[in-house]
């Protein structure tokens, strides 16, 4: 966790050229004439990192696929004919058909929307919870902090996957398309905000002691104004990194739960569920399992690599 504190601490000295702006490095503008902020410095570094570029591109493709699946395939993922069950690749379906005779590629393309949506919504929910609770705990301290810290301890005591299994068993299935989807989002968000909240808390504590916060207080700014206008912008960088990685973890969690049979059900197309079904017949035809597996892995991997690259760019100590 000290990594993130360092990020937060360096963020606050953004105006001074940190150790990051190594003079004499090729292709960098002269540091003495133009002072670059840490964020600018990080962006400068990121732009030339292949991992950052590749992962951003993959995420972009996946997001477009989620929003406009018909750009990638014209086949209907839900029109299945048992007559073409397990048929190999052909001109109509580049990856062939699965056991039920559905177009493997069409299902995979349409599955992107489920994964991206679950990941995005759970991350937003977890992010809001983490920022609000971490901010309150870090800013006010004292008893409130102690109580919130114990609550975080308790939730961290239950591994995410196990908590979600029991919660999904308990909550039933949900109705229609949005019911099950939002249920899983809610459960992942409720159990997944704790790590990010701890990070917000520690960066709020270090931001709270800065001179500009004291100055704002002296000028008569209210607590809420100090929190929102002064501390929040300076405490956001580390938590965004953690949330990017969490997004990948939430997508994994949804796929894993659907794989185990407690997650999403038909008619929602989930990569996890398709993989689980295809795995039973992997000896006959491995393609229906490998295609969604590849898409799932690429998506999660991209979010994790993106988060990792951004964290590295923001943490001069790691260079």
């Amino acid at each position, binding site marked *: 966790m000290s990594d993130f504190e360092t990020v937060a601490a360096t963020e606050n000295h953004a105006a001074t050229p940190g150790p990051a702006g190594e003079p004499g490095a090729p292709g960098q503008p002269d540091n003495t004439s133009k002072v670059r902020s840490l964020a600018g410095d990080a962006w400068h570094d990121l732009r030339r990192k292949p991992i950052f570029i590749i992962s951003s591109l993959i995420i972009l493709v996946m997001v477009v696929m989620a929003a406009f699946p018909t750009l990638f395939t014209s086949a209907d993922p839900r029109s299945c004919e048992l007559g073409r069950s397990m048929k190999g690749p052909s001109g109509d379906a580049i990856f062939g058909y699965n056991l039920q005779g559905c177009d493997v590629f069409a299902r995979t393309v349409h599955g992107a929307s489920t994964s991206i949506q679950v990941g995005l919504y759970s991350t937003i929910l977890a992010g809001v919870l983490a920022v609000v609770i971490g901010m309150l705990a870090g800013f006010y301290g004292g008893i409130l902090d102690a109580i919130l810290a114990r609550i975080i*301890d308790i939730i961290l*005591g*239950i591994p995410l996957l*196990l908590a979600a*299994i029991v919660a999904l068993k308990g*909550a039933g299935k949900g109705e229609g398309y949005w019911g099950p989807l939002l249920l899983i989002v809610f459960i992942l968000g409720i159990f997944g905000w704790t790590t990010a909240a701890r990070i917000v808390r520690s960066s709020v504590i270090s931001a709270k002691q800065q001179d500009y916060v004291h100055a704002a207080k002296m000028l008569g700014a209210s607590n809420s104004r100090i929190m929102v206008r002064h501390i929040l912008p300076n405490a956001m960088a580390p938590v965004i990194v953690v949330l990017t990685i969490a997004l990948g973890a939430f997508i994994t969690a949804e796929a894993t739960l659907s794989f*185990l049979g407690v997650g999403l059900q038909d008619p929602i197309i989930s990569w996890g569920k398709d993989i689980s079904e295809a795995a039973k017949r992997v000896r006959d035809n491995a393609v229906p399992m490998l295609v969604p597996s590849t898409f*799932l892995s690429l998506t999660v*991997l991209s979010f994790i*690599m993106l988060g990792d690259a951004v964290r590295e760019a923001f943490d001069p100590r790691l260079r």
Partner: protein
Amino acid sequence: MLRYIIRRLLQMVLAFFGTTLIVYYMMFQASGDPIQALAGEKPVNEAVRAKLTAEYHLDEPFLVRYWYYVKGLLTGDLGNSLSGGRPIAEVLAERWPTTANLALYAFIFVVILGVGAGVIAGIRRGGIFDNTTLLLTLVVIGIPSFVLGLTLQLGLGVKAGIFPVTYMEERDGQFGLILPGFILGSLALATAVRLTRTSVAENLRADYVRTAKAKGLAKRRITIVHVLRNSLIPVVTFLGIEIGNLMGGAIITEGIFNVQGVGFELKKAIDIEDGPMVVSIVSILVVIYLLANLLVDILYAVLDPRIRYE
């Protein structure tokens, strides 16, 4: 030190009640009519219903039932499974050794490969080995473990035939657990590499290493005696916490490879909707996880005196 342990124990007690309350509450929400579930399709006569209601405290309020559940959990009386009606504790006692055995393999992989590669990468930071391992670990962290499991099962089991595709104890013996163990440990392995690497690289730049160098100590001695000892403190704590996680992760690996351990039993209970079984297994896994965390924190305080004075 004693004060630290006492404070940590109190936190643990609180966390125990908090987590079990959440788990029990979630199951409480789930249970429709457990007596009907027990009887299946048959109608239940009133006398039997009254007897069972009293026996399982079904007419009591939530907190009272929670209390009976915690008491059962602490005394090892977990009730009976819905399918077959065997005592859950008995089923679990039968399954534990297999899961522990599997987790041991995972742990060996994590310690030898993970810490070993991490130390080498940390010493040769920025080199080819370092960059390759960093990228590899990212890939392993990025691929969901069930995808990794299925793919390796397909590649090394079905296609290449090196490892058994599904595990049968009498046929495969210990050899059959190597691949499932590796997959179970893969995430922890990757994390261990990255953690060890950062820790070693950081300590190599510390003042005490420069002092040791200035004294003229041999490089090997500095690395092994000074750097490793200090670098491995965070790694040890990570490994401790991972023991708890490995038990939970077993549900995927055991399901894929048909290893008949606790995770397999949990997967089966989910499939046949055996609520009491699911909750019992999850509760026990949560307790193990909490205990592992407690032990690790105390161990951490022993290894690193600074932590006691926070």
